Every structure is written in C-alpha cells, then in structure tokens.
C-alpha cells in the first residue's frame, strides 16, 4: 500500500453549509474486505441500518461488528435486495440458498452521507463559535481541530465563510494549517478564477482536481519542508 502521507480526505463546505467539494485519497484507505463461504444457519447476526446491511453481533474470521455486507456470491448488493428477494428475510433465511459466499467490509461514506456530515459539521462549528464562555479580548472561532482514536480533522474557515476540512491519520504530523491555506489558494486559483464556475455550487473543475492531487501526493517530508519554510508571513510580504 502506498501511504505517501496520512491524508484521507479533503472537504470544502460552502458558507451555507453545503458540501461543494470532496476528495478522497484512495490509496490511504485501508482495505478491510473479507470473503467467506457460509453454511446454514448463518452464525452472524445481520441487521439493516439505513442504506446497508451490517454485522450487528457475532464476530468471526476477521469479520467484525459494524462491517457491511458488500456482495453475495460475488454480486455486489446495494440496499437490502438481492435477485428480487429481501436479503435478510427471504434469501439468507432460506436453507436452499446455502452454501453462500458473502463478502464483508467497512463501507465508505456515500455521497449523501458526506453531504449530511458536511451540514452537520457546519452546525457544530456554529455551536462551537457561540460565546459560551465570554472572553473580553477574543472571540470564539469555531472548531479548528477534532480528534478521534483513528483520525484527526482540521478545519479552516475563511473570512468569507468557506470551510476547508482535512481528515488525516493521527500519526501524520505535518502542519495542517499551512496545508489548509495551500488548498485555499488552489481553490481561489482553479475554482474561483474559472469563469464557468458558479459560486456556491459544487466544484467540478479538472484543473483543481489535478493540482489538489499533486499537492497531496507529495510525501510527508517534502510537504512539510515546503509548507514549513514557505507559508506564514513570508508569503504576504512577497506579494508587494
């Protein structure tokens, strides 16, 4: 696996809370797929949670709770239908269909889920920016970083209200503030300066994709060096 750096995803959220851009670094996502042949009765408890069928209880052979059912006998499934039959109530409940080959794995977020997540983050940001603890010489800025036990989220909101999000590995120690500013610059150059791009609309600009990919492809070290030495005040003084 090519893990040149620990960036998983980039999100851009418009000032009204809509997701206008998303980029996933595919090579950085771990592969979790497990394929196994099962005999009747199924020793894993499956349940349907909104868009997909997931493992509710009963772990075995690297199939963990929370994994989704991705394929039956090699055919991809979406939702809970397979060959006109309900997967849970009919297909897997019927002994004649066994032995059956099932593929499980962690499903990635669908576009809809990403959009929901973006607007949810937008509101969370607003809550964080409330003056819950008044400070006389400073204002709250909203969420700048969020950490869980397997990823870190860094956020930068511009003065015009656009939010840039970087989701990265916990082990990745590059300076995210500078990376975010760099992405902001790319957004300015390749999305906003494109006369055919409409403000507040999803960004579908190939040049932007290419340049963002180039920026992220750089391995840890060069990215760090470049961002570390270049950014900050020196860039603004250069312009005059």
């Amino acid at each position, binding site marked *: 696996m090519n893990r040149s750096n620990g960036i998983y995803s980039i999100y851009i959220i418009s*000032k*009204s809370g809509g997701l206008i851009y998303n980029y996933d670094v595919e090579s950085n996502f771990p592969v979790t797929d497990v394929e196994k042949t099962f005999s009747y009765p199924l020793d894993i408890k499956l349940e349907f949670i909104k868009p997909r069928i997931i493992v509710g209880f009963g772990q075995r052979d690297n199939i963990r709770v929370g994994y989704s059912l991705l394929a039956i006998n090699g055919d991809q499934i979406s939702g809970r239908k397979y060959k006109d039959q309900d997967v849970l109530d009919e297909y897997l409940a019927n002994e004649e269909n066994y032995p059956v080959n099932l593929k499980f794995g962690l499903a990635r977020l669908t576009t809809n889920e990403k959009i929901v997540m973006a607007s949810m983050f937008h509101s969370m*940001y*607003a809550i*964080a*920016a*409330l003056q819950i603890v008044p400070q006389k010489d*400073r*204002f*709250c*800025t*909203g969420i700048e970083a969020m950490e869980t036990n397997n990823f870190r989220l860094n956020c930068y*909101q*511009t*003065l*015009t*209200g*656009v939010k840039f999000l970087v989701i990265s590995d916990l082990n990745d120690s590059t300076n995210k503030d500078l990376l975010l*500013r*760099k992405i*902001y*610059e*790319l*957004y*300015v*150059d390749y999305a*906003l*300066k494109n006369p055919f791009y409409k*403000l507040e609309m999803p960004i579908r600009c190939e040049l932007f994709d290419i*340049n963002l990919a*180039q*920026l992220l492809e750089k391995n840890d070290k060069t990215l760090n060096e*470049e961002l570390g*030495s*270049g950014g900050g005040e*020196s*860039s*603004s003084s*250069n*312009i*005059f």
Partner: protein
Amino acid sequence: MSKQANKNSIETKKINSDLFVLTYGAIVAQLVKECDNAEEINKQLDKMGYNIGLRLIEDYLSKTQMTRCHDFKDVAERIQNAFRIYLGFAPTITNWSAAQDEFSILIDYNPLTEFVELPDHLSNLRYCNLLCGVIRGALEMVQIDVQVYFLQDYLRGDQTTELRVRFMKKIEDVLPRNDD
C-alpha cells in the same frame, strides 16, 4: 499560476499594465456598441465589477492572510492595499466624514484611463465604473454593505478622480463569527 503548487511562496504573475488597460478598453468599447445609453453601460460595468469582486476577495484574503476588519478605517487601509496589489498604485484615502462612515479614494494617476478621451456623446459614461462594483462585491463577501460612487472623474474634466465609499450596514451574518 500553474507553478504555484510547487512554490514556497505566492508568486503573483506580473503582466504589462498596458495589456490590462487595453483589454479593459476593449470591454468598454464593446459595451458602447451593445448598449443604448451611457447609463446602461455604467450599470453593466458595475455589475461586472460586482461579480469580479465576489471572487477577487478570496484571492486577496488567501494571499495576504488578512484578519477581519472591525472599523471603517481598517477597511480603507485594506482597500488601499488591494489597489496596490491588483492595479499597481496606492490611491490616497481622504475626506473622512465626521461619523467615520464615509471616505474618498483619490486616484491621481489612473492607469486605466491612460489612453482614454471621452467622446462628447458619452459624457455621462463612468469609464471606471467597474471599480465601484469590485469594491462593493468584495466587501459584501466579508459582510460589509457599502455604496460606492464617483464624486469626481478626471475624464469628465474634474481635477482628479474621486471615489466615494459609504458604509451602509454590517450584513447580519448567518455565519458564526470568525476572527483571526
């Protein structure tokens, strides 16, 4: 611009101002052909400028890393700064109103009008009206509503070119406050 991703610092591409000035001239000349009267041209220029301003502000912010303005003096200073970056000259800021909510931008030497003489039938044309739109559009994106208009225009026989900027209101943001 294409090099930017590989560079440490921001590189602004310098172009010959004549090229810019002539391109602007071509736009105005085209509008003169397409529009019936000077008023209409002024309106179109303002609208074009407004749309440029909405985008230009992001460029300005990303390259200068400015923080939010808290009074109109700040705003004036930043506008002066922006003129220097984008047009290559710094105008004079004067004639503050007593309430500090209005100021003038004096442009003694305006590269945009360097080769321009207004013909008689276009005496109502505000040749540089695009600038008004740009300032209005850019400030709107940072929640400041202003009115910008020409007080004097060198092309129309005044001593100098004077843009008046008047603070209307702070746009109530649906956004959370974000400072620095």
